[in-house]
Every structure is written in structure tokens, then in C-alpha cells.
């Protein structure tokens, strides 16, 4: 088998919690708790789940913006978790990120042309070719040379996201981590950006980790999808299987909860009880057992392992 572009093994991120007035034992927010997956060259892996389940934290660890508490990240077979800043520099250019809020991620005092040029400077792109590259990138994302001299506030949300994408593409990365890249956009603009991301993937042979809470969006853009709940991946498989034969009770509930724009469709809905528990005090055993309609005694006691129950179909649930 071909070496995957990225391999994540038993990744954990525990944030220390501020101690209460009483001090006491040190406690942690288990933002990411034993997550493993691979990203194959050229594919889009979607990560989906409700807010606070650890999607962004996972993405930030891949970007080396956060150090894992435990676990390994392999890039093209090489463990990059322990590398020094110096060693990481050449690899870092292969990872770029696109954020949800393009406005917050673009420096308001810089012209759009300068924003796109910045990573070129950082990574030592030849000076005489930089201007040309910036103009080319603007075109690639559907903007024009005219936009280079404008400031971010003069752009609409969709255009700002295009700028964010142009900047991410600047140094020819292999992997783009897109964290909720269309969540803040109106639907008509959202589809423009989704189409753009697909076109760019084909043109530049990009690999995506696409993070979002919107299942319909994730299903549309991804080849495979991982479903997260309270810091863990509960199910991971190709998108057709995930949609047609979801196995994990949480995946089933999540899929059934998504309102579908078809008024004739009357579906059985699995209504989950209660709220998502806090990751600082996750339930014992299977962390979903407090809301799961199928939970048995075993579920509250034993942590289920992520098992491959059919080729490429991973589920973490005692039912299987």
C-alpha cells in the first residue's frame, strides 16, 4: 500500500483546566482523546461533529500550532511530532490552513496582494517572481489583479475566503486543512467556494482535511468521513457507506437530525436526549452512553475500541 500522506496515531490533547477555588486535583479538558486516522494522497478526509468535539484542536495539532499531549503525527511516513522548529521548517510549507472566519485571519492593515505574498517571503520564494505569482494566485481563486491593492474590509465574505485560499496555495502545499471554511458564508456563496476547492484539488493535486459541523457539506466534498464525539472518532468510512449504512448510534442520530431541503421527505428521526456532556468531565465507558438509545450496561463501564468491522469501515461501539 502507498504510504499515506498523513498518519495520525493515538493523538491526544488534554488542556489543563484552571483550578477552582478549592484547588484539588489537576483536571483536564480532554479535547482530543486517542484519535487515529490516515489521510491518503489526493483525497479529502472530512471530520464532522458537533461543537466542542475536538475537530479544530485536531487540525491545529496537524498544523503544529499545538503540541499533542500524546501520540504521533506522521507526514509521508516521517514522525514529525518530535522535530525541532528548525527541522520542521521545510515540512511546514507542505501544510496550509484555511479558516472559518476569513476576516479574523486576514491582517486588516495589509493589502490583499501583501497578504498573499507573505508566505512567499517566509518560504524564500525568489523576489523577482513574487509579484507574478501573486497575480496568478488571485486569478486561480477567481479574483483579479485589481484586487491586489485593496484591503480585506473592502471584500465580501466570499471574496475574503478566496483570499484566504489564495494565501494557503501560495507555496504549493501538499495538504490543506480547511476548518469550517464555508460555515460563515451564505448558501449561494458557500457553493461557489466548495466548487472552487474541488477545482483546485484537481488542478494542484491537493489533499484536504475538511473540518465542518455541517454534514451535508462534508458529505458533498469528502471521499471519506470521520465522525467525532467528545474528542474521539466514533466512526470512519467512505462517504457512501457512512450515509447508506451508518453503524454508530451517534452517526445515525446525527444523520437523522439534519433537516433536508425536501418537504416530501418524512423521516424517522432519532431524537437524542439532553445536551452534549462536557469534555472536562466525560462520561465513563463509551462517552456517548448517556445519550445513546441502545446503551447497555457494558457501555457505561468499558471504553469501546475503534474497530475495523468491514474493509475501511471503522466503528467504536460495543454493538459491533
Amino acid at each position, binding site marked *: 500500500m502507498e504510504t499515506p500522506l498523513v498518519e495520525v496515531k493515538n493523538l491526544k490533547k488534554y488542556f489543563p483546566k484552571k483550578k477552582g477555588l478549592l484547588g484539588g486535583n489537576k483536571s483536564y479538558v480532554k479535547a482530543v482523546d486517542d484519535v487515529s486516522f490516515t489521510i491518503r494522497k489526493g483525497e479529502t478526509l472530512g471530520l464532522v461533529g458537533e461543537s466542542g468535539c475536538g475537530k479544530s484542536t485536531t487540525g491545529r495539532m496537524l498544523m503544529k500550532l499545538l503540541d499533542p499531549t500524546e501520540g504521533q503525527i506522521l507526514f509521508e511516513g516521517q514522525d514529525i511530532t518530535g522535530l525541532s522548529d528548525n527541522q520542521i521548517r521545510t515540512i511546514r510549507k507542505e501544510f496550509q490552513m484555511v479558516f472559518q472566519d476569513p476576516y479574523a485571519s486576514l491582517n486588516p492593515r495589509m493589502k490583499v496582494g501583501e497578504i498573499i505574498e507573505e508566505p512567499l517571503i517566509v518560504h524564500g520564494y525568489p523576489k523577482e517572481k513574487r509579484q507574478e505569482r501573486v497575480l496568478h494566485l488571485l486569478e486561480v481563486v477567481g479574483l483579479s489583479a485589481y484586487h491586489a491593492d485593496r484591503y480585506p474590509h473592502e471584500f*465580501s465574505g466570499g471574496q475574503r475566503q478566496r483570499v484566504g485560499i489564495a494565501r494557503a496555495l501560495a507555496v504549493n502545499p501538499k495538504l490543506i486543512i480547511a476548518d469550517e471554511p464555508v460555515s460563515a458564508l451564505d448558501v449561494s456563496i458557500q457553493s461557489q467556494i466548495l466548487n472552487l476547492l474541488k477545482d483546485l484539488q484537481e488542478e494542484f493535486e491537493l489533499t484536504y482535511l475538511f473540518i465542518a459541523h455541517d454534514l451535508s457539506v462534508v458529505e458533498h466534498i469528502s471521499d471519506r468521513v470521520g465522525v467525532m464525539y467528545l474528542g474521539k472518532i466514533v466512526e470512519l468510512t467512505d462517504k457512501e457507506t457512512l450515509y447508506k449504512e451508518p453503524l454508530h448510534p451517534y452517526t445515525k442520530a446525527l444523520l437523522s437530525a439534519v433537516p433536508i431541503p425536501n418537504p416530501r421527505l418524512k423521516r424517522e428521526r432519532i431524537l437524542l436526549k439532553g445536551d452534549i456532556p462536557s469534555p472536562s468531565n466525560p462520561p465513563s465507558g463509551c462517552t456517548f452512553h448517556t445519550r445513546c438509545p441502545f446503551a447497555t450496561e457494558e457501555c457505561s463501564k468499558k471504553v469501546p475500541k475503534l474497530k475495523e468491522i468491514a474493509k475501511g469501515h471503522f466503528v467504536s461501539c460495543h454493538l459491533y
Partner: protein
Amino acid sequence: MAEKLLEIKNLQTHFKSDRGVVKAVDDVTITVNKGETVGVVGESGCGKSVTSLSVMRLLKDTPGKIVGGTIEFEGKDLAHLSEKEMRLIRGNDIAMIFQEPMTSLNPVYKIGRQIEEAVMLHLKYDKKQAREHAIKMLKLVGIPRAEEIVDEFPYQLSGGMRQRVMIAMAMACNPKLLIADEPTTALDVTIQAQILDLMRNLSKERGTSIMMITHDLGVVAEMCDRVVVMYAGKVVEEADVFTIFENPKHPYTEGLLNSVPKLGQKIKRLESIPGNVPTPGNMPQGCKFAPRCGKVMDICTKQDPELKMIDKDHTCRCWLYQESGVLEV
């Protein structure tokens, strides 16, 4: 025969500023019948919230003003009522819920007190009755431990629970009309499913009409009997929910429906509407959708089409379905 409850006719609400007039709502016509749920959809900035704030007459603290049209509710024109008269209707006959519950919840009051005040004012309950009613309402919206929660503060609750409290408060006086402005937009999908379920059951049991403002076409398909589509301050199409989804006529409605990815639908590319929503300072001449429309004709860029009845209970604002008038120059 459907009985009208609310009839907004040709509503115009404008905002004056140093930089000119923003025509946030500029010719909006919406009818809500008794017992019906009407969806109002459109992208951000198209005037959905300003429309609902106009109905509730909650524009006092803004530079916004109703400058045209009528808002008929049970024989009264809300657009022209005094603040005193409006206070008897607000929270009583018409209640509103928001995307952010803290818009209507007071952080320094206990939850019970917020519900009690409304029912003491409108239903003339005494303190004890009001408290009992508050607990009953909290139970009705599925708040566990209602007897304890009634003495807690909003910040002690999760987002989904706060949303329920706001609904309890809104439904406390048994309003005839509930205006819900993006009530589930900030919620996770499993929590959204709970809240939509609750709203559907409450409105069915009590015959409450709902004006459901949202940008989510899935929510519309699931909740609404009729749908009003807005673009740049105007209603561009209105029909029953099946017609809107299966036989949309306005190019914008069509484009919007084709833009959303649908679960389980295998398509490589989404259709998308080119360009951006026009900003208030840059409103195009003629049809506001013309610069993005694939079917644009000469007349579209010159003259604004009217909202016309194109079929039984189906209106549309587009030159494709109306005789071009004489061009006034």
C-alpha cells in the same frame, strides 16, 4: 378558507445615516394565516430581521423607521399603533424568539421572574399563580428539574436549555403569533432537532401561527406550510412549500435551491449563483438580482419588476412572468 392573522403589505423600513438611506426593507408583503407556519428565507442582509422587528415595533433604539405600507393584525395596523397600544400586544398576542436567547433573557433576573412578569402583566395572574404558570411552562418545553431551574439564572444553563427557556417565555401568554428569528441557527444539529420538534408540537397543540425566519432551506422544508423568499429587501417569490421546492419560478429561488448540498445526493458540482449579494450602498438599477441572474433581459437592468400573482397562491417578482410596462424615463 384560510383565515388571515397577520397581513404585511408593501412594508418599507428604511435606515437613515450620514451616508444616505439604507432601504433595508423595501416592499415586503407577507400573509400569515391562523395556525400556519410561514417561512421567510433569504441570505444575510436581505431584511428578514428588520421585517420582524418592524412587526414587533422594536426599532425605537435604531435609526430605522417604517416609511410605508401596513401591518394588519386582527383589524389593527401595527405600523401605526402607539407604543402604549403596542405594549399590550407584544409578548401577549405576538411573541418573538431570537437566535441568541440572551437577547430576550435578562442576565440578572432569575428565570422564573422573567416569565412571571409577562403573565402578571398580560394574564393578570397574581404572584403565586404566575410562579405556578412559569413552572408549568418550563415543564412544557422539556426543562428537567423545572421547580429548581425556575430559581436559577440564565447563565447557569446550556445553549439549548436557554433556547427552551426563551420559548417558554414567548409561549407563556399563549400568543396567536410567534415570530422566530433564526431560532436554531446557533445550535448544534441534534439540539436543533429537539427545538424544532418542540416548536412544531407547541404550535400544533395550541394553534399558534409561526413566522419562521431562517436561511436554512432544510428547516423551511421541514417546518413550513408556506414560504416567502426575500432578496435585497424585497419579497421575490411566495408559494406553498411544495411549489417553492418543486416548481420555483424566480431565478433566485431556483439558484438558492441548487446551491445547497443535499444529504445523500451524489453530484460532483453544485450549481452556484455567481457574484455577491448587493450591498445597500450599491443597489443595482432595475431588478436587484439582475447582475447575478442567468436569465437577465434588457428590461431587467432598467426597471424593477413587481410582485405579481402568477398562479393561484403563487407570487413572483420577475420580468420573465410579467408584461414589461412602458419604460418610464
